[in-house]
């Protein structure tokens, strides 16, 4: 894996080098290749874990797992398409909302007298900074302005070069964070949502409130594991692990910031304010705070309140004195991203019972209604992001994202990320695997077509070339034939893939039910699906598999977390609102909820919820 990376080929490592996902498989070419004698024997021998993996994947002979195999001599390696980490494509739209403009940073143009044409005046003996401050405070309703030494260092030459004509950026009415030459009324802020899987940045014009540009990248930390727990393990166990994780995500942010500013014709140094949301773990990594407490009961964060940190201290390549604002977090697994969602949804203002679901490896659930605001996190597992699913992948190029099955013929058509047309059974596509929304579609469509039953079992009475038995006696259903894909094999859904979805959806369903019960309800009036994943989901498919307690009004609301960050950028009162919201919200730990397990077990069955006809209420014991 290191060797590949040195050569600039990034590999998938969904499981964080635990030899379970097999996504980093590579093939060793045998024999001479341009004067290189390559042989399997030039790699370290297989260890137990690797042997175990390949014993279950007999179709992969000749392959090795790059995360375990060490290079001991010359080798020529073939890296299959699906082992490569590709650029992330995810929905990055932002639902626009109305908010009054009251940013924390404002620009003031001043002409400092001693440097003007009238020459040295009465106040000629004053220091540069005091002259500047005196001019600002007399002309604008500001007092007690301060500045850090970065501003001071740049001040003398700026004043002299511009003859005292400068634009001053003032933060929170109290600190000068930037001085620019001449009149420059462009005031830019950036809202950033750091997710476990992807990072989104929105460049906002703080003068008119418009979003000028948006960019998304996949979180470069993915190399250290797909889920937060794997990354926490790395941060704690590897020497300098935390530092490494921080540097890599900050580097990523710097790239993203230059892309997003470039898109709108600016540069990162034009940014004067930054607002950041992210789950508690990403928040800790960005700040270089140890995630140790997040990893074990009682799940204690290092800090919960909102923070103002100089962007330079984080390593962001912005104007050095600019601040970055971190929204507050609620709990170890309900982060600033959830606070962003709450802010954006303004849930406490709604009279009806609204369930907001932000899905990922960890689902965050927010319920507002009956005058209360509740939230929780439910560990649903990586299935919705393509993990633990045999043909699963993230929503990148080549992922099957929509699937339809004809209930009569059992013929399948699918759509691949980035291409608007349906497959026709003949044409070759660039399909490499299935992403979360596609997997949910598959399960829903298989259920509708009767290929699987509500208990997740494959119907053995069906005969179709697409349905076949593996050597181990389990069933698989073919979604894409080899000739339709960019791989040389069929893309299939297996029985255990369906099981993984059942576990994940049961966790979401049970978490939502527990919240609803707290406010005395069984069903919500409205469901909002947040996050890019929520936006790509087919609402009908979600209803069909029973992802959440059913209701007619279901809306995808886009990146609500990012939108919350944007609101904090545009209006400083939203920051106060966020800070008071985390005081008000009731955080529920599902681990402590007695009824969770029972509902979880009942919700394992697909379709709309029906309590299981158990013999003597045995589920109660669990």
């Amino acid at each position, binding site marked *: 894996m290191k060797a590949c990376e040195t050569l600039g080929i990034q590999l998938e490592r969904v499981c964080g080098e635990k030899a*379970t996902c097999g996504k980093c498989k590579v093939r060793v070419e045998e024999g001479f290749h341009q004067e290189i004698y390559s042989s399997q024997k030039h790699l370290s021998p297989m*260890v*137990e*874990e690797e042997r*175990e993996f390949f014993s279950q994947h007999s179709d992969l002979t000749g392959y090795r797992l790059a995360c375990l195999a060490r290079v001991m001599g010359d080798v020529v390696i073939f890296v299959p398409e699906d082992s490569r980490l590709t650029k992330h494509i995810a929905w990055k739209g932002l639902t626009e909302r109305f908010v009054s403009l009251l940013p924390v940073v404002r620009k003031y143009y001043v002409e400092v007298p001693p440097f003007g044409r009238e020459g040295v005046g009465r106040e000629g003996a004053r220091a540069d900074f005091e002259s500047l401050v005196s001019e600002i405070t007399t002309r604008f309703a500001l007092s007690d302005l301060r500045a850090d030494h970065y501003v001071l260092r740049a001040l003398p030459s700026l004043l002299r070069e511009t003859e005292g004509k400068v634009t001053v950026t003032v933060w929170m009415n109290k600190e000068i964070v930037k001085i620019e030459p001449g009149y420059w009324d462009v005031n830019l802020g950036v809202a950033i949502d750091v997710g476990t899987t992807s990072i989104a940045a929105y460049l906002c014009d703080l003068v008119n409130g418009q979003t000028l540009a948006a960019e998304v990248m996949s979180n470069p930390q993915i190399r250290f594991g797909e889920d937060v*727990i*794997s990354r*926490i*393990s790395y941060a704690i166990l590897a020497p300098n692990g935390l530092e490494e994780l921080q540097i890599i995500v900050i580097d990523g942010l710097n790239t993203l910031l230059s892309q997003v500013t470039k898109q709108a014709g600016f540069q990162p140094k034009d940014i004067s304010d930054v607002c950041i949301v992210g789950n508690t773990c990403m928040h800790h990594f960005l700040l270089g705070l140890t995630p140790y407490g997040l*990893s*074990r*009961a009682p799940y204690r964060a290092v800090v919960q309140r909102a923070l103002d940190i100089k962007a330079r201290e984080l390593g962001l390549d912005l104007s050095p004195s600019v601040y970055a604002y971190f929204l507050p977090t609620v709990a170890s697994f309900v982060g600033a991203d959830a606070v962003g969602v709450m802010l954006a949804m303004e849930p406490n203002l709604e009279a009806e019972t609204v369930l907001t679901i932000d899905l990922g490896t960890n689902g965050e659930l927010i319920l507002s209604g009956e005058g209360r605001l509740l939230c929780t996190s439910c560990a649903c597992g990586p299935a919705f992001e393509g993990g633990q699913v045999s043909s699963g992948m993230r929503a990148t190029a080549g992922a099957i994202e929509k699937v339809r099955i004809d209930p009569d013929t059992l013929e399948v058509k699918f759509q691949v990320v980035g291409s608007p047309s349906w497959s026709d059974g003949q044409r070759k596509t660039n399909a490499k695997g299935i992403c979360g929304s596609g997997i949910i579609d598959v399960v829903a469509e298989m259920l509708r077509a009767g290929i699987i039953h509500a*208990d*997740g*079992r*494959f119907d053995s009475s069906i005969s179709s070339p697409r349905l076949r038995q593996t050597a*181990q*006696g*389990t*069933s698989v259903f073919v979604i894409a034939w080899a000739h339709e894909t960019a791989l040389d094999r069929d893309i299939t859904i*297996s*029985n*255990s893939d369906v*099981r993984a979805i*059942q576990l994940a959806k049961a966790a979401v369903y049970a978490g939502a039910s527990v919240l609803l019960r707290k406010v005395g309800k069984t069903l919500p009036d409205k469901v909002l699906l947040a996050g890019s994943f929520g936006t790509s989901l087919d609402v009908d498919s979600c209803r069909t598999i029973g992802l959440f307690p059913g209701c007619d009004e279901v809306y995808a609301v886009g990146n609500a977390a990012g939108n919350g960050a944007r609101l904090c950028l545009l209006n400083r009162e939203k920051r106060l609102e966020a800070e008071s919201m985390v005081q008000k919200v009731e955080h529920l730990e599902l*681990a402590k909820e007695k009824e969770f*397990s029972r509902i*979880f*077990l*009942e919700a*394992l*069955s697909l379709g709309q919820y029906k309590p*299981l006809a*158990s*013999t*003597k209420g*045995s*589920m109660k*014991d*669990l």
Partner: protein
Amino acid sequence: MREMIQAIVEGDGDKALQETERALAQGANPLDLVSNGVLAAMDEVGARWRQGDLFIPEVIIAAEAAKEVMAVVKPHLSEDEVPTAGKVVIGTVKGDIHDIGKNIVKMMLEAGGFQVFDLGVDIPPEDFVEAVTRWKPDVLGMSALLTVTMLAMRDTIDALEKAELRDSTKVVVGGACVTSAFAGTIGADGYAADAASAVDLCRQLCSR
């Protein structure tokens, strides 16, 4: 008896009980009902689970039906005929509260004739040691679902060694994040990927 097995596998507790009572009334050998009936049914449940035919809820209901049948048959067995496949102490390790998997393992073990002492969740090594001292089980089973709590299994094994209990008790570990390789590294006697394998494994270890 075939009907009874069928009813258990399908999770039809009422039918399983009816069939059991009918068989007993017809003079069936109660011991035979247990070993070739209930235990055979649970073996089939395990096999069908592995094949993907049954899933967690179905398995729980079947185990529950098996337990009820056992309760009806038991009074017909003499003291020394009551099958005890062995004694197992089980719990989820410190820092971890995931117990659904552990509870299923427990149910399957009970349905398989084991006597199980369930310590619950978030169990520190000392408590495992205390339970082993008290109940002298054949097997100590630990469950962990988090990568970060897995290491608590090793701590428990170390504690058992310190208390000089390691030789008298077999240690079995399991849970979604655990692998057989990991079980090997920490010096456990066995690893089971699912509850049905856990029963097989415990049987094997107890018969040695």
